[in-house]
């Protein structure tokens, strides 16, 4: 739009300038035409008179002998030439003695237009002595006299062509003068000026005027009559400070023609001047600038006005047209806004135009589609919401299946359990459960292959079977086989379950367990290690599979840490697995802190979270920690160490004993004694309890109630009662140089009490040291 406007203005500017200039040229040529026409007219008139004079010279010279004939010739000349106001013959003195000293003939047209003539003899003698006459006479050629005011005859401004009269011998005897009155020229100029004023310059304050000057600048014709013959053009121009007009005046004197723009009477004016040949006059017209440019200005303004009015009309029409056509579209916009607000059933406005009708039907189709999609979306969303609600309920039920109150056995000090499940989907396939029956802790942890509702259902079956089977049986093998049969029965989708199931005797710390393809748990304590597991297949694959049962003694203070593979298989963004090794290292590190089961689970879980770096978990993660505190009652202090039957573990034992003695604030000597006594007892078991090359565990528990320290040494080796060894007599022993029995002697010497018991196929040697 703005581009169009600028373009229009530029075009109009050019049109304006061209129009104005063209009109100015036209005005100039009009005024040029006027002076050229005047020039031509002057030349024509003067030429006619000149030719008439020349032609009559021959006739006059032929009749010179008959002076009375000459009068008729002159009359005829005047009669034949309208512009010739009068003419005369002037003879030199005494050419016709019969006529007197001077002789002159004069013919003229009177005011009624009748040509008359007369002879003047003595009455008009002054011609001969006038300078202009003498100058003309002396000339070789005929010529025009400068204009003069003819007071004698016509009383008008006159110019005369003077040519010589010669006798038969070629002598100059007089002159023929043909007068031309310039009255017609004056009248003509007046008329031309008036016509100009009336036709072209009516409304102008300052109007054009024309004048004629002589070859020496004398005004011949001028609107101001007082100047005629009295003033000279160059004198007038010299009065102004401007020098341009002086230069123009000189050009006119030289006989040049042209036009020039200058300041005339303080008005910008164009001056057109034209030199008239033969007469040596210059015709001048002075036209104010305004007049030259007026028509151009007017015309250009009219064109501009018409253009802008046209433009305005076109704009208004377009505006009206567009407005009229946009009205339905506006109604459409309103309708579309309402559709956008969800009112799909709104009625569309009626339209008349074809294009908008196409839009209307497209719009209508869109409304229909939108309504349909919205309905579909609503029902889909509702279905999804219902499904999510069901999943949420299922998840709640599943969560309720899991033990969720911690600590679960607040009244017991021998067991500390904490577990948590974090499901990847709304419902998961992980499970764990535990309960105590007959001072035995029954527990299990499992992972159903797959996720979501089907996995959760299998998990529910497994969990309920674990409960019911554990009521009937005490052996993990039987319980697991019972669960396996049930899972196999209801397993149409070939889902399987990995499960670790154990029964912990809370009195002794003895754990019976069966592992069905599950991850090996970790014993976190003094000697952190994986629980050894047999390769049994997961549940749900073979109903008749015979599962094996294993056993391990859990030392007081040790935590059994169980987990599902979602934990160890957690990955970083670059697919680096957290892994069982890393978990094991973290378990060893945390073991030193002797944490309660809740803190252990939280801390080890945090190491995994930190490792994977906030990646959302892909699989369910279940963690279960069972910390066994031992069965000993009223014991404030409890430490234990599990050793194997290898003397290389003696330094480990020494460190352990040193720690205990430090806890008991024993002095150096007592520490050395206790150390020696315990070493002797342990080495004894190492050396004799188990057959050589057979690995066996030796468990040393240290408890204290503040009064005494009790060292309890257990082993599963062959029955042996060191207290039954006969007390050696040191004196005889030394003398005999026998070296057996030295160890037991040291134990007896350094301990306050010593007792032995065979409990559940184990040797239990109890050594007591009083603290006070």
């Amino acid at each position, binding site marked *: 739009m703005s581009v169009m406007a600028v373009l229009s203005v530029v075009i109009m500017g050019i049109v304006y300038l061209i129009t104005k200039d063209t009109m100015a040229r036209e005005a100039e040529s009009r005024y040029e035409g006027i002076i050229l026409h005047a020039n031509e007219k002057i030349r024509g008139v003067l030429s006619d008179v000149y030719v008439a004079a020349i032609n009559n010279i021959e006739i006059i010279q032929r009749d010179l002998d008959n002076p009375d004939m000459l009068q008729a010739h002159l009359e005829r000349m005047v009669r034949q030439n309208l512009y010739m106001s009068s003419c005369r013959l002037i003879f030199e003195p005494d050419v016709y003695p019969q006529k007197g000293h001077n002789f002159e003939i004069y013919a003229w047209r009177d005011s009624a237009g009748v040509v008359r003539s007369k002879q003047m003899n003595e009455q008009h003698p002054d011609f001969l002595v006038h300078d202009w006459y003498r100058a003309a006479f002396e000339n070789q050629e005929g010529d025009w006299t400068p204009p003069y005011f003819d007071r004698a005859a016509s009383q008008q401004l006159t110019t005369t062509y003077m040519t010589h009269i010669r006798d038969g011998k070629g002598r100059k005897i007089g002159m023929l003068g043909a007068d031309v009155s310039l009255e017609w020229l004056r009248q003509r100029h007046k008329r031309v000026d008036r016509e100009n004023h009336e036709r072209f310059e009516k409304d102008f304050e300052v109007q054009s005027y024309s004048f004629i000057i002589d070859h020496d600048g004398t005004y011949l014709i001028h609107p101001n009559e007082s100047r005629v013959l009295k003033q000279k053009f160059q004198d007038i121009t010299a009065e102004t400070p401007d020098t341009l007009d002086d230069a123009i005046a000189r050009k006119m004197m030289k006989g040049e023609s042209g036009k020039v723009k200058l300041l005339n009477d303080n008005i910008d004016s164009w001056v057109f001047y034209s030199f008239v040949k033969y007469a040596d006059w210059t015709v001048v017209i002075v036209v104010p600038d305004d007049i030259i440019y007026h028509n151009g200005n007017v015309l250009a303004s009219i064109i501009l006005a018409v253009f802008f009015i046209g433009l305005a009309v076109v704009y208004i029409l377009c505006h009206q047209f567009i407005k009229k056509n946009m009205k339905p579209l506006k109604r459409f916009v309103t309708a579309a806004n309402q559709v956008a607000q969800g009112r799909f059933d709104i009625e569309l406005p009626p339209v008349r135009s074809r294009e908008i009708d196409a839009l209307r039907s497209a719009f209508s189709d869109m409304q229909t589609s939108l309504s349909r999609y919205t309905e579909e979306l609503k029902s889909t969303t509702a279905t999804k919401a219902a499904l999510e609600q069901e999943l949420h309920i299922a998840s709640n039920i599943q969560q309720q299946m899991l033990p969720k109150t911690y600590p679960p056995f607040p009244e017991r000090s021998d067991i500390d359990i904490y577990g948590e499940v974090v499901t990847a989907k709304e419902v998961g396939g992980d499970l764990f459960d535990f309960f105590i029956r007959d001072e035995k802790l029954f527990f299990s942890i499992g992972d159903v292959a797959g996720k979501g509702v089907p996995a959760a259902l299998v998990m529910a079956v497994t969990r309920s079977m674990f409960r019911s089977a554990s009521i009937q049986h005490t052996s993990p093998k039987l319980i697991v086989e019972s669960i396996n049969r049930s899972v196999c029965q209801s397993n149409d989708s070939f889902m399987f379950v990995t499960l670790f199931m154990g029964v912990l005797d809370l009195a002794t710390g003895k754990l019976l367990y069966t592992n069905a393809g599950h991850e090996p748990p970790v014993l976190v304590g003094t000697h952190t290690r994986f629980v050894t597991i047999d390769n049994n297949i997961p549940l749900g694959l073979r109903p008749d599979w015979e599962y094996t049962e294993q056993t391990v003694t859990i030392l007081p203070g040790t935590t059994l840490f169980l987990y599902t593979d979602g934990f160890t298989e957690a990955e970083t963004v670059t697919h680096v697995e957290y892994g069982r090794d890393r978990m094991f290292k973290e378990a060893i590190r945390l073991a030193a802190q002797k944490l309660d089961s809740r803190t252990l689970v939280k801390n080890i879980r945090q190491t995994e979270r930190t490792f994977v770096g906030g990646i959302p978990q892909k699989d369910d993660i279940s963690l279960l920690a069972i910390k066994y505190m031992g069965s000993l009652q009223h014991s404030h202090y409890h430490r234990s160490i599990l050793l194997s039957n290898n003397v290389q573990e*003696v*330094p480990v034992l020494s460190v352990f004993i040193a720690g205990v003695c430090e806890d008991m604030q024993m002095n150096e000597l007592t520490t*050395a004694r206790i150390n020696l006594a315990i*070493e002797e007892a342990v*080495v004894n078991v190492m050396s004799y309890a188990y057959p050589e090359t057979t690995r066996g565990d030796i468990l040393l528990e240290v408890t204290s109630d503040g009064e005494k320290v009790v060292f309890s040494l257990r082993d599963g080796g062959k029955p042996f009662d060191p207290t039954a060894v006969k007390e050696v007599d040191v*004196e005889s022993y*030394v003398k005999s140089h026998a070296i057996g029995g030295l160890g037991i002697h040291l134990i007896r010497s350094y301990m306050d009490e010593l007792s032995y018991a065979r409990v559940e196929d184990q040797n239990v040697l109890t050594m007591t040291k009083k603290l006070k």
Partner: protein
Amino acid sequence: MEATIRKDDNNRITLILDGRLDTSVTPQTEKEVEPLYSYTDCEVVIDCSRLEYISSSGLRLLMAINQRCSANRCTLYIKGLKEKVYDVFETTGFVHLFQFK
């Protein structure tokens, strides 16, 4: 545990025991002291000033050394026993079996 044998002069050999002589190191120490048995008719001093601990197996090793040295007609002395180690000698009656310097 370190066992170092030093020949002071033709008549005197010193065995320096440094550290803990418990059951786990006794078999190794037994091997390390074997060069001692090549000396005859001399004085053998067991320097125990840096012995931190001794178990019954260690005592047995000392008994064995004593017997072998006697067979080589060497006289065995023990010197520099710390209190806690001397306590064991006392308890076991080994104070009667050795000469102390």
